[in-house]
C-alpha cells in the first residue's frame, strides 16, 4: 500500500536520512522506534512532504512519486488520503474541537456542512470526546487535544495515519487515554505508521517494528519476533536501555 525507496535527506551538511526503504501493507500497524535524533520525525515529514527530501521514491496507492521533485498537485492528492498526528497536536486554536475535525471535510473535500458535522461527531465519539465538541483547544487537556487531533485525522477516512510520538508531549497520567484510542484504531484495521517511545504499545499493538538509528534502518521485522529475539547488537542494546528506563 505504501512503499518508500532509498529516501535521502540532509540538513546542511548533516545527513539525517541515508537511504531509507520500507514497506507498509494495508492494515499494518508499524512502530518506528530508535534513539532520539535518529531521523524518525524527518522520515514521517518527508513521506508527507512537510520536508523536501533530497532523493527517494514514494509508492502510494499504486502511484509512484519522486520525493525530490513531487508536484504541489501530487502532494495535495496524497495528503487527501493520509492523516498526520503531531507530537504537539497542532490543533487550530481558533476553531472548536468539532470545527478542527470538519475543516478538512468542508474546506478541503467540499463535503456538505450537515454531513461533515455528522462525520465529525462520529469521529469525536470514537475518541470519547462527543461532549467536548464545542470546546476550544485552550479549554482541553493535552490528552483531549491529542484525541481531537486523532479524530481530525480519522474523519477524512485516510488510507494510512502517521503518528509522530503522539504521547511524548503529555503528562504521564494522560498517556493512557491516547494509547487506548490508538489501540481501538488499530483493532478496527486502520493502517498506521507510528513513531513511538512507548515500548508496550510497540510490543502489544504493532504488527511490525522498525528500529532506526543514525538515519538508517538497523533492523525490522514482525513485532513478536523482533522483541523476542532482536538480531542486531545495536537493537539489543537499545531495547536494554529502554527497559532499564521503565
Amino acid at each position, binding site marked *: 500500500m505504501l512503499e518508500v525507496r532509498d529516501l535521502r535527506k540532509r540538513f546542511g551538511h548533516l545527513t539525517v536520512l541515508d537511504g531509507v526503504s520500507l514497506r507498509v501493507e494495508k492494515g499494518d500497524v508499524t512502530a518506528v522506534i530508535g534513539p532520539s535524533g535518529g531521523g524518525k520525525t524527518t522520515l514521517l515529514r518527508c513521506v*508527507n*512532504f*512537510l520536508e523536501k527530501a533530497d532523493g527517494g521514491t514514494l509508492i502510494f496507492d499504486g502511484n509512484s512519486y519522486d520525493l525530490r521533485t513531487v508536484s504541489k498537485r501530487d*502532494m*495535495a492528492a496524497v*495528503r*487527501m488520503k*493520509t*492523516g*498526520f498526528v*503531531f507530537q*504537539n497536536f*497542532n*490543533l*487550530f*486554536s*481558533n*476553531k*472548536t474541537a468539532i470545527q478542527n475535525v470538519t*475543516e*478538512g471535510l468542508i*474546506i*478541503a*473535500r467540499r463535503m456538505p456542512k450537515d454531513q461533515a458535522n455528522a462525520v465529525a461527531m462520529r469521529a469525536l465519539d470514537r475518541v470519547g470526546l462527543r461532549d467536548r465538541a464545542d*470546546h*476550544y*483547544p*485552550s*479549554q482541553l487537556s493535552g490528552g483531549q487535544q491529542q484525541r481531537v*487531533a486523532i479524530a*481530525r*485525522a480519522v474523519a*477524512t477516512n485516510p488510507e494510512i495515519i502517521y503518528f509522530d510520538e503522539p504521547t511524548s508531549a503529555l503528562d504521564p497520567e494522560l498517556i493512557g487515554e491516547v494509547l487506548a484510542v490508538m489501540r481501538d484504531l488499530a483493532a478496527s484495521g486502520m493502517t498506521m505508521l507510528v513513531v513511538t517511545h512507548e515500548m508496550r504499545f510497540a510490543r502489544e499493538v504493532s504488527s511490525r517494528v522498525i528500529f532506526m538509528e543514525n538515519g538508517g534502518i538497523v533492523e525490522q521485522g514482525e513485532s513478536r519476533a523482533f522483541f523476542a529475539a532482536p538480531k542486531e547488537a545495536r537493537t539489543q542494546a537499545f531495547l536494554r536501555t529502554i527497559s532499564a528506563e521503565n
Partner: protein
Amino acid sequence: MTERVWHILLESFPKILLPGLRMTLPLTAVAFALAMVIAVAVALIQFARVKALVPLCRFYIWVIRGTPLLVQLFVVFYGFKAGMYMSPFWAAVLVFAVNEGAYCAETMRGALESVPAGQIEAGYCVGMRYTQIMRRIVLPQALRTAFPSLSNGLISMVKDTSLTANITVAEMFMATQRINARYYEPLALYLEVAVIYLLFSTLLTWLQRWGEKRLNALGGKEARHA
C-alpha cells in the same frame, strides 16, 4: 470663569463638534479601513515571501515610517498639488491610509509570524491549500493578536487628523482656530476641542474593549484567564 467665556464655549461647542462628526470621524474611518487593506496585503506578501514584491514592501515601510506625517501631508498636498485632483479631505485620506498602512503592516507581519507553523502544517495534512489555511486559520488568529496594537493606531489617528488643518481640511481643529481668531480665548477654546478629542478617543477605547471581548469569545480565550 466669566460669563462671556461660558457663553463662547457653549456657542462654539456645536461649531466644533459638527466638523468633528463630518470630517474627523469619516476621515479616520475611511483612512483606517484603507490602511487595513494595505497592511494585510503588505504583511501577507512578506509572510508568503513573494520574492518579486518583498523589496517593494520593505521600501514602502522604510520610507513611510522614516518621515514625519506632517511632511508627508505637505509633500502630497503642496508638493504634488493633490488639491488640483481631489478635495483636501481625500488628499488627507490618501496620506493617512498610506501612512497608517505601513505601521499596521509591520504589526500584522509580526502577528502572522506568531501563529505556530505547526498549524499550517496541520492544515496541509488535512488537505487544505495554502490560501485556505491563510484565510481560515492564520489570518483570524493574527488579527486577534494584532487587534490591540491596531486599535492603538486607530486612536492615534483620530488625534493626528488635527494635522490636516494644515492642508485646509475643515476639521475640528481648524474650526477651533477660526473661532479663536474671532474671540481670542485660546485656553478655553483649545481645552474645549481637547475634551472633544478625548471624548472620541474614549469612545474608541470602549469599542476596542468590546471588540476584544467578542473576539475572545470567538476564540475561546476566556478560559485561559478563568
